[in-house]
């Protein structure tokens, strides 16, 4: 089978470094991964093509890159799943991190964020002489998030990081959840309080990209939601983030429809006039797009609101 890899390249040592695309035609085997293709280019056509790779088996996390627009592990992606005979596959470095050369990105910002969450077990007091006892379920539950290989793929495609570099990001938050959910860790409150700050767990917009692209099924966004739930249950100090969640729920419960102006007012508080005024352009735009109920705060509950309220009751009970 025949395919073309269209690879985004960048060499910082060029006289006027800028990125460009280069195409390589390849004869491939149906079992070949994109990584196999890249290695074939490197070994037989052009050894200046630069990428990181190691295990070839989706466990080391070295070969994260964007393939046809989404971040993934090149070793795990079969070329035939990306393109039919004669079609082109586009390969680019990961997003949301600086490019060093070709497909190699600088992971230093990634690791700096991981370090922010103090990623080590913090038990209380001296350890027992034997192992800590812990239920098999609790450890199996953690193994889902421990399968994270820190490849950076979720961080690459995180839409919040695209606009806000300070967001701690899906990988670090998933790692934080790993400790918060560990029965042996005693720093849960400190961890949740830290994540309760701006750039922490409330800044995820739930776009689900990280769940889509994660090659190991870690589901970072689900872990972030679990962190929020644990935060609310532990009664972390009220912040815009936590209030937003609570007010959101409250409005739906009482009106059955989201009342955006009320959401903003109650989230920020009436005292925060500056913040509210700054929102006016967005409110106007939302109005134009039909995203605000026409009557705003005066909107009445939707017909059949009692059904929604019954749902709320059941959800609370089953929790």
């Amino acid at each position, binding site marked *: 089978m025949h395919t073309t890899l269209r690879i985004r390249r960048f060499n910082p040592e060029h006289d006027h470094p800028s990125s460009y695309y280069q195409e390589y035609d390849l004869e491939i085997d149906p079992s070949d991964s994109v990584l196999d293709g890249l290695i074939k280019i490197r070994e037989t056509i052009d050894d200046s093509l630069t990428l990181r790779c190691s295990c070839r088996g989706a466990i080391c996390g070295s070969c994260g890159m964007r393939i046809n627009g989404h971040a993934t592990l090149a070793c795990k992606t079969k070329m035939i799943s990306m393109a039919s005979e004669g079609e082109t596959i586009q390969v680019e470095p990961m997003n949301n991190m600086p490019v060093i050369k070709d497909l190699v990105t600088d992971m230093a910002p990634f690791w700096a964020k991981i370090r922010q969450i103090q990623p080590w077990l913090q038990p209380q007091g001296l350890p027992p002489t034997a*192992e800590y006892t812990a239920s098999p379920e609790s450890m199996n539950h953690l193994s889902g998030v421990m399968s994270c290989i820190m490849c950076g793929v979720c961080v690459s495609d995180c839409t919040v990081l695209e606009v806000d570099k300070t967001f701690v990001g899906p990988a670090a938050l998933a790692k934080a959840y790993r400790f918060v959910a560990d029965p042996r860790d005693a720093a849960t409150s400190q961890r949740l309080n830290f994540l309760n700050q701006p750039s922490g767990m409330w800044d995820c917009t739930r776009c689900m990209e990280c769940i889509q692209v994660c090659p190991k099924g870690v589901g970072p966004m689900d872990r972030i939601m679990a962190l929020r739930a644990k935060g609310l249950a532990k009664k972390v100090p009220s912040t815009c983030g936590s209030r937003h969640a609570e007010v959101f729920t409250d409005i739906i419960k009482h009106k059955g429809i989201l009342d955006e102006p009320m959401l903003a007012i109650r989230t920020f508080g009436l005292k925060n006039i500056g913040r509210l005024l700054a929102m006016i352009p967005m409110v106007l735009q939302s109005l134009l797009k039909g995203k605000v109920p026409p009557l705003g705060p005066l909107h009445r509950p939707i017909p059949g609101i009692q059904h929604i309220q019954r749902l709320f009751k059941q959800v609370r009970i089953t929790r």
Partner: protein
Amino acid sequence: MMNSAFSYDVLVIGAGLAGMRAAIAAHNQGASVALLTKVHPVRSHSNAAQGGINAALTDRGDMWQDHAFETVKGSDYLSDQDAVEVLAQEAGQDIIALEHMGVIFNRNEEGHLGTRRFGGQKRARTFFVSDFTGQAMLHVLYEQTMQAKIPVYEEWFVTSLVKDDQGRCAGVVAFEIRTGTFALFRARSVIMATGGLGRVYEPSTNALICTGDGMAVAYRAGAPLMDMEMVQYHPTTLKGKGLLITEAARGEGAYLLNSKGERFMERYAPNMLELASRDVVSRAEQIEINEGRGIKGCVLLDCRHLGRAFLQDRLGQIYAEAKTFANIDLAEEPLPIRPGMHYQMGGIKTDTEGRCWDVQGQWTGVPGLFAAGETACVSLHGGNRLGANSLLDTVVFGRRAGTCAAEYANTNPPPTIPDSAMDKDKHLVANIVSRKGPGERAAALRLEMGTTMNRHVSVFREEEGMETALHHITTLKTRWPDITIQDKGQVFNTGLIAALELGFMLDCAEAIIVGALTRQESRGAHFRTDFLDRDDEHWLKHVLLYHRPDSPPHVEYLPVRITQWQPQIRVY
């Protein structure tokens, strides 16, 4: 005082399990420690260890002596029994220490650590995290190095060891991959923990980074390599590129079948069946394939009877791997597998403290140099390593090497070596990069080397084939100085790295073949069709190889240390 920013009491090369465990141990002794590694620590090949880590926990009725005996028997009596005793006695405390650091080992119903059964052992004493035990441990040890604030020079490539004028190891020369800048790292002691050399073979289960760098660098500096002929073929590697399918699959009850649907291990190991030790199972599979009862060069691993839920829960990684890489649903179809190069039992000779020189003076080496993990040979695994003993090796002997290296650093003055110690390596690299013309590619030479090794120095060996292989490797060594690379830059020049790694691998390949030609018997993984039997009278000894620049290595021998287990006939 030491006169450079790059000066430490203990410098650890390699940041897999052995390296990080060593660094943490040295740090706990109060030494100034740094890790230097060619990939980021969590990208290390330790990730690949799936099945688990052995320990006889005495508080639940297991005996360390049983674990030790089975390790000795598994090694075909080539392991040094003093080292095995240390391993088996200290395993429990190291597993508990790992658990306290945060490893999420699977539990039993009572909430205590749970076990599964592995090959070559009569009792379930393998502790595990689903089937990604190595990864789970590696990430936790990296967390610990972060907490201890141990500096990590990541993506640095070591080109040679530096010795002072008294012949002691005094540091390394390395360059930063990202900038191409050379630096001299001065250290009172250096610990080599660079892992294995799998890429000497093609195919191999090993990651592309496993190129024997540490072995070659230490060997060139004067440390002997031991028992290099002992190359383990893993019985269950995936058809094609040789990806590993964990032994835990057989531990959890999977069968091996030939093309006739026979469970052929009944003929080769009637008691232990699929759970005989790895060399035995690999040979059995290869015989089935050679005698025409294979399917396209493979036999089958049958997991169907285990059920989908069980497979996903306890063997989730290989369940996913079979889907992704072979398009097979393990719950519905058997998986084609075959023996594949997996592990180097030999390596840089060390004593039980990780020292690469002998304080008693029975053999020479490099004072100040330590080694641990797959790159080292204590000798624990002898002729054949038991599954789940390699992770244990890394943590027990990594810790011991770290502790002893810190003590050694404490009693020795700082090295005085001039910056000119880097000159030779700088010139070599400049020469490789600037070489013009369409010379041969490193990748082409590596493939020739790998297929040669896999053809002639694999599960079955004989003199003529190995002579052919040695001749071929010698020729490749003469071709190496003429290879050219297209990338002429300083930044992240992976072409340059491939060329340097190939140089290291060729030294390792030569050592493997010379060791294999020297040992005229069959023992463990070293099975010679021209010497079918184990010969304790002549060969109950280690083969030591000393590097010589322009000729094959100098061979010496060391007696095997026997404490309480006299060699017996080995049957499973």
